[in-house]
Every structure is written in structure tokens, then in C-alpha cells.
């Protein structure tokens, strides 16, 4: 079964690029445009990994991440915060809300694919 990746961003161009990139490696891609929509999609689509933007309308990425990590059903979903916020305080904040990884925009496409792959393999291992 293909791993499902949920991409959450309010920038349409970013979503287009992420989708092309991820589909090229055989992932199933779901998308959401804000935090609230993301939480709904998580329930219905049960993704394996989430690429989560921070600055978004309705609900910011930190809050979404905290919610995911505090729920029994969703806390095992890997979360990569993908954000323009590059200050060390932001990274610290990201860690505090339980994110598995923190990547700043603009990101390196192939490095991102690599990181996703590593995180998902690790998850598989720990499950087995």
C-alpha cells in the first residue's frame, strides 16, 4: 500500500509543486489549505505523514501539530513542519509542539524527499 502524505499550505503554488514532487515518488497525496481543513482530512484520510505549514489562516501549524500529537489516534502520524519561519525560537517552538522534523522554506526538493523517506522507514521499523 502506498504511504499517504497530507500536504497543508495556504499557498496554491507550493501545493502544486509538493504534489508533483511526492507523486513522482509514488506517494498518495492529500491536500488541505488551512489548519481546520487539515484536522478534518486527518480524520478521514488517515495519512502516514503530514507536511505542515505554520503561518495559515484559521489555525496555525503549531496548534494543528499539538492537536495531532495529543490525540491517541493521531499521535503516531509523523509531522514535518515546513515553514518560512527560520529563527531558532521558531524551531524551538516547533520541537515543543511535538513535530518530528523542521524544514525551512525554500526547501531542497530532493533533500525533502530523502527526509520523508527516512522518517517513514523508521516508523515502519518501530512498528515491526
Amino acid at each position: 500500500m502506498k504511504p499517504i502524505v497530507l500536504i497543508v499550505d495556504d499557498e496554491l503554488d507550493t501545493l502544486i509543486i509538493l504534489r508533483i514532487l511526492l507523486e513522482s515518488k509514488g506517494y498518495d497525496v492529500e491536500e488541505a489549505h488551512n489548519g481546520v481543513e487539515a484536522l478534518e482530512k486527518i480524520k478521514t484520510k488517515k495519512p502516514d505523514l503530514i507536511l505542515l505549514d505554520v503561518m495559515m489562516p484559521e489555525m496555525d501549524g503549531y496548534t494543528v501539530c499539538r492537536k495531532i500529537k495529543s490525540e491517541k489516534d493521531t499521535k503516531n502520524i509523523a509531522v514535518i513542519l515546513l515553514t518560512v519561519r527560520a529563527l531558532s525560537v521558531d524551531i524551538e517552538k516547533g520541537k515543543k509542539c511535538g513535530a518530528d522534523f523542521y524544514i525551512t522554506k525554500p526547501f531542497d526538493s530532493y533533500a525533502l524527499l530523502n527526509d520523508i523517506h527516512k522518517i517513514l522507514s523508521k516508523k515502519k521499523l518501530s512498528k515491526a
Partner: protein
Amino acid sequence: MDKNKIKILIVDDESLIRELYKRVLEKINIDFDEADSFEKTIQFIKLNYYNIVILDLKLADTDGITLLKEIKRLCFGCEVIVVTGYASLDSSVAAIRAGAYDYITKPIDVDEFSLTINRCIDKQILSKEVGRLKSTVGLYELSKAMTSIMDLQDLLNTMVRIVKQTLVSDTCSVMLMDEATSKLKIMASDGLSDEVINSTELKVGESIAGWVLKEQKPTLLFNGLKKYPQFAHLNPRPEIYSAISVPLIVKDKVIGVVNVSSKDESRNFTTEDMELLAIFASDTALMIENARIHEKLTKYIKMLEESQIKMKELDRLKSEFISNVSHELRTPLTAIKGAVELIMGEIISTAGVTVEKLLNIARNNCDRLTNLISDLLDSVRIEAGKMELNMGKVSLQSIISELNDEFKFLAGHKNLTFAYSGPKSIEDIKGDSERIKQVLNNLLTNAIKFTASGGTITITLEDRNNDVRISVTDTGVGVSPESYDKIFERFHQVDGGLTRQAGGLGLGLFIAKSIVESHDGKIGVESTLGKGSTFFFTLPKHNFVLK
């Protein structure tokens, strides 16, 4: 009070009798004046203060009782000893009834006269002493109570009220030196008209209060100013009969003057009153100075607190701005870099997406970056006052039609209806065409950004008498009235923080306002929250003379 401060007026038309009184008074070392008629007596009373008057009831030119009453009326606290003819008991009784202290009969028995006059002197001294003690205690209590008043105005108001009461005056005022203008101004008063309060402003040395301030001398005045050489040239206020002015001195610095005045001829202020007021003034001057310092400090503290709040707000705006710039720069770069990497990695071939689509994304985001950078540069230029206008003929209709095409396309993406209303033709105006286009562009960009799909955006052009008015009306989120001015400030955004609905740096309206104002136009907004907004700007027609 001691005996040598007592002053007596002898009123008798027989010089021999006056000679007799004089001998007695000189023996006990008492100061006196002599009068032999009604006229003279009144003259003396109006010029000087007498503690005691010895009055012959049988003067050639008057009825003694009338003169007695006049003396009592004009000379507050004065005692009158009447002298009557032998065995005219009736007139003595009438005199006592009219307020005389005692009577002696002619022919004068020197011993009896000495006794009576000495008794009267003692009584005068005693009653003055008692009165003085009473006032001193009163003012002392007041000074004590006043030390707890921190507010300058409260302190001064209390001061004038109590001084007026204690000295039985008609008016009392405290004048302080204004440090900025070096002029004396009435800071608190009781009994003065607003006209006097507002119009009185004295230089050092000017008028009576100015003189007292300069010379630092307590001053007692009554019945006109002619007899005081330093004030003889002044026009006294006709309603004032008697007045005291004393300086307020802190260490060696004079900070102001306390004045009291009386309209009533019977209320002559005395040297005792003046001394009392001087003592009170020296007690309160320091309190006034302290209250002034307290007031200044309070003001500084408030200013400090306000600037601290402003600094915090600036600091917050600054970090929000940095975070926004970072977002606004990195977001398009992310799309550009992503698109380029996809093309380079030939991933698109597998994904079945056209190269053209990715190149389009890259180009649009380059434009977005370019706009952002020019906005930033514009705002820096505006802040430095270095925005230059390239003045020429401006055809508003062609600007609107260019933008109309561009934005109709964008509005279509969001399913917005786009409309224009205005005259078929309008005269060209003078201005910087590119800049005016930028204003309208910024207003339209906002309208699209803040209007949900399905809404309407209308551009309206009005040809008015002296100007043209261009407005952009949307059916968007609206602006609350308290933000009408703020949204035109640099970096101001309707919502900041992580969950902001719209991107941007908060520069669009700031730039628009600067451009409109540099064209002598006006910009503004009318809005209903939740229903929509109309942003408008005007451009004048009158200065269409190309240089």
C-alpha cells in the same frame, strides 16, 4: 503687639484740651494725630489706621454721634472714647449705644483720663493678641492639613479659600511664576471675576504683585495708591479699598505672590494681618514648590509609561514585520526553487505536467517578489521624503481600463463580479500617471484579497467641481471605524500573527496615501464591518498647468 504700635487720633476743636491729651499721651509714649473738625477726622481715618479715637461729641461742625458712627464704620476694630460736656448724661448713653468704648466728662480730670486711656490701650492690645492667636492657630492647623495635599491645584484652591476666610477679605489669589514665560499668572483665586483671572499676566516688577515679587517685600495698601511712591503711577482697581500682597519664597527663590483685597472701607487690613499672611506664605511656599515638583514628576512618569507602551508596540510591529518580510520573500522563492528543481530533475515527465505550467509558476512568483521589493523601496523613499513624481498629463480613463482588464482576470479566479461606473469622458488631470495607477492597483489588490468569492468589486469615477473622485467598493470583510486611520499607517495590517488571513507587508495603503497626498488629494475609507468597504481618493483638477 506692644504699646508703641498703638496709634490714637485726638478729635477736639479746643486746642487747650488737645494740649492736655498730648501731654498725657507723650508721657506714656503713644503715637497720635490731631483733628479739629469732621472733615479732618475723616481724612485722617482714611489715610491711617487708628486703634483708638478720642472724640469730643461737641464739635462746631457736626453732630458727634454721626461722626462716631462714621469712625466705627470706616475703621475696623477701632475703639472710640467720647468726651461729653458736664452733666450731659443723655449724650453719653447715646454714644455708648452707638458703639463707644467709654466716656469721660469735661472738664477733664487728668487722672481719670489717664486711667481710661490706659485701660482702653490694654484692651486693644489684648483683643488684637487674641485675634492674632486665633488666626495663627487657624493657619497653623491649615498648614498642617495642607501638607497632605499632593495635587498643586487642590493645594492652591484650599489656600485661597482659607486665607480669604481667616483674613475676612473679599478676594484672595495666588499668583505663580510661569517658568516658560517668566510671567506671573493667577493660579487660584476666590472672589475674582473670570475676566481678571484670564487677563492678568504680569512681568517681574510690573504692577503691585510684580513689584512685591521683585522686591520680596510684603506690602500693605489702603485707600488708593497716591501715597505710595512706587505705585503712585498705577491706576488702582476702583473697587479695592485695602490690599495685602506677600511674596512666596522658597530658599532664595521667589515663586509667586499671595494677594488679598477688601472692598469694604470698614475692613482695613492691618500690619498684623500682613505679618500673619507673610508667615503663612513662608509656610506654604515650600508646599507649593513640592506639589509642583510632584506634578512634574507625575507628568514625566506618565510620559515614560506612555513611551514604554509605544516602544513595546513598535517592538512588536518590528518583529511582526521581520516575520512578515521573511514570509513574503521565502514563499515565492519556495515556489520558484521548487519549480526549477522539478524541471531540472525531469520529474515532470513522469508526473505528466507541462514544463510550461511550472515556468508560469516561477515567473508569477518572480513578479510577486519584484512587487514586494518595489513596495519596500517605495516605503523607504517615502519615509525619507524622497519619492519623486514624474508629472504629466494623466488620463484616468485609460488607467482604469488597463487595470480593469488585469483585475477582471484575477477577480474571475475568485468568482468575483467586476464593475465600472463613471462618465464616458473626463478631462486629463495633472499628475504622475504611473503612481496614480499604483494607487488604484493597491486598492484593487486589497479589494480582491479581502472579498470572499461571489462578491462584487466596483470602480467608480466621479467628475466633480474641483476634483475627481475615484473609489473602489467591495463586498468584503469591512474595516472597523477605529481602524479607519490606522490602516493607512506603515506596516499596519488588519490581522497580524500566525493565522493572518492575507499576506503582504502592510505597505499598500501607506504607499497609496503618500502618493495621493503628494498630489494634494485626499484618501479615505467608509465601511460597514462584514458588509464591505469603499476606499476612495480625490485628485485636484485646479493645478493643471504643466511646467
